[in-house]
């Protein structure tokens, strides 16, 4: 059951990219393109969501995602309230749904939800009144749809199309909600070859069933790639000893200029942030000519504006 779309194809919530039709993804990317100039104008605002109240519900820390959601909402003229739940009433024992009900009673129109538990945004989406939309800003290992979308937007901006690309996702796929969202989006948008490159201990079982090719070494995996997406080594999600050491990991899976040379000469390097320099990516690559890591952040604002505008406007794909 797809809770994200209404029966007539309108975007109702954005919870995961899994199962979203290609037309909806393209619609979001095109709408984001239309918002690109707003950030470069004298007045960096359009009046689209004037009078709407958007609540950033972050049950887990985040800088980039929360900030870009906040900027995106403000550029749409919405009123934004940021709640850092770790330091509020949840710590006094209130349940998530009680928190949500209380905020809904303050006339919320949209919740942006980040939570360490997979499925938290779905739970809230299933609970709220019909006029309220929910955007998943990352839930556990499950999904981070706006990150996946901004990555697709970045790829389309630099490569123009999806149908002729080889894309490699490198690193801690096991713990990465970003990787899952990227894989769903890449396959839906028709990328013919999506690769994952990681040691066996950092890959979920059955990852091949998501439509990806699995590689365990960079030398073969990076060959002829158009796009390389590096994932953060998620120390805080590591349970037990999956890796000998960060140094060892860098030696085999860290992206250096030498390894980057195996990909196509015009390959772009992406990273969702925050980066561990010298662990999954070398500074020479992160700050190098092929890195599009900072443009990703800028595009994230336009993409989040598009998602919020489409949700609030209720438009069929």
């Amino acid at each position: 059951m797809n809770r994200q779309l209404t029966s007539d194809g309108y975007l109702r919530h954005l919870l995961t990219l899994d199962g979203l039709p290609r037309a909806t993804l393209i619609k979001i990317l095109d709408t984001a393109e239309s918002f690109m100039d707003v950030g470069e104008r004298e007045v960096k605002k359009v009046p689209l969501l004037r009078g709407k109240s958007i609540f950033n519900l972050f049950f887990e820390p985040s800088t980039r995602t929360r900030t870009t959601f906040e900027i995106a909402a403000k550029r749409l003229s919405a009123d934004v309230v940021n709640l850092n739940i770790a330091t509020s009433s949840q710590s006094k024992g209130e349940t998530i749904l009680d928190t949500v009900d209380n905020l809904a009673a303050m006339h919320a129109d949209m919740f942006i939800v980040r939570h360490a538990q997979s499925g938290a945004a779905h739970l809230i989406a299933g609970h709220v009144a019909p006029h309220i939309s929910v955007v998943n800003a990352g839930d556990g290992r499950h999904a981070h749809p706006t990150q996946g979308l901004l990555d697709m937007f970045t790829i389309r901006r630099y490569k123009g199309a999806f149908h002729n690309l080889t894309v490699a996702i490198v690193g801690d796929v096991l713990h990465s909600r970003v990787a899952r969202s990227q894989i769903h989006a890449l396959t839906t948008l028709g990328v013919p070859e999506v690769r994952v490159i990681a040691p066996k201990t950092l890959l979920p079982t059955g990852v091949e069933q998501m439509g990806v090719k699995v590689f365990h070494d960079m030398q073969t995996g990076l060959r002829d790639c158009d796009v390389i997406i590096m994932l953060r080594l998620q120390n805080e999600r590591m349970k037990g000893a999956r890796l000998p050491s960060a140094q060892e990991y860098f030696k085999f899976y860290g992206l250096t200029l030498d390894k980057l040379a195996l990909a196509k000469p015009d390959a772009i390097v992406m990273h969702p942030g925050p980066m561990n320099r010298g662990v999954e990516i070398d500074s020479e690559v992160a700050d190098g000519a092929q890195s599009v890591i900072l443009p990703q952040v800028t595009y994230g604002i336009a993409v989040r504006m598009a998602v919020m505008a489409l949700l609030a406007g209720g438009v069929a794909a």
Partner: protein
Amino acid sequence: MADLLPDVDTLIAQLADAIRPGLTADTALVGIHSGGVWIAERLHQLLDVTTPLGMLSITHYRDDFSRIGLHPQVKPSRLPFEVEGRNVIVVDDVFYTGRTMRAAMHELFDYGRPALIRLAVLVDRGGHELPIRPDFTGIHLDIPPGQNLTLSRGDDGSLIMSLA
């Protein structure tokens, strides 16, 4: 009814003649997507305007967003000149309620403070709902509210007015 509709090329030529006397070195033409852009392109050529042509998509400024949502084909706005202090002539195909122009002015001011804004339209069809009127009008037609007057462009670039 179709034979009552005027020839678009003739109207554009008349509009150009009306605008010409007031042109200054820093006048900029700005078309509103889509029909207004087509007309503005023609005027830009006819009038030898040196400032690059601007295009406005008022999608993000509409007052009916909460009722009808985002327009499915959002074309980006592009104003390739400094709006601050400039003489701007906004060009649209059909002037009806005036809401499009209200949105266009709102958007223009978000790019800077123009010295003046004038409005040139091909057809003023009546039915105004706001205290906004065109400065240059190709023709006045009295079209009843239920009918839709639209401009379309053929593959060869020809512009045709139709009523449905």
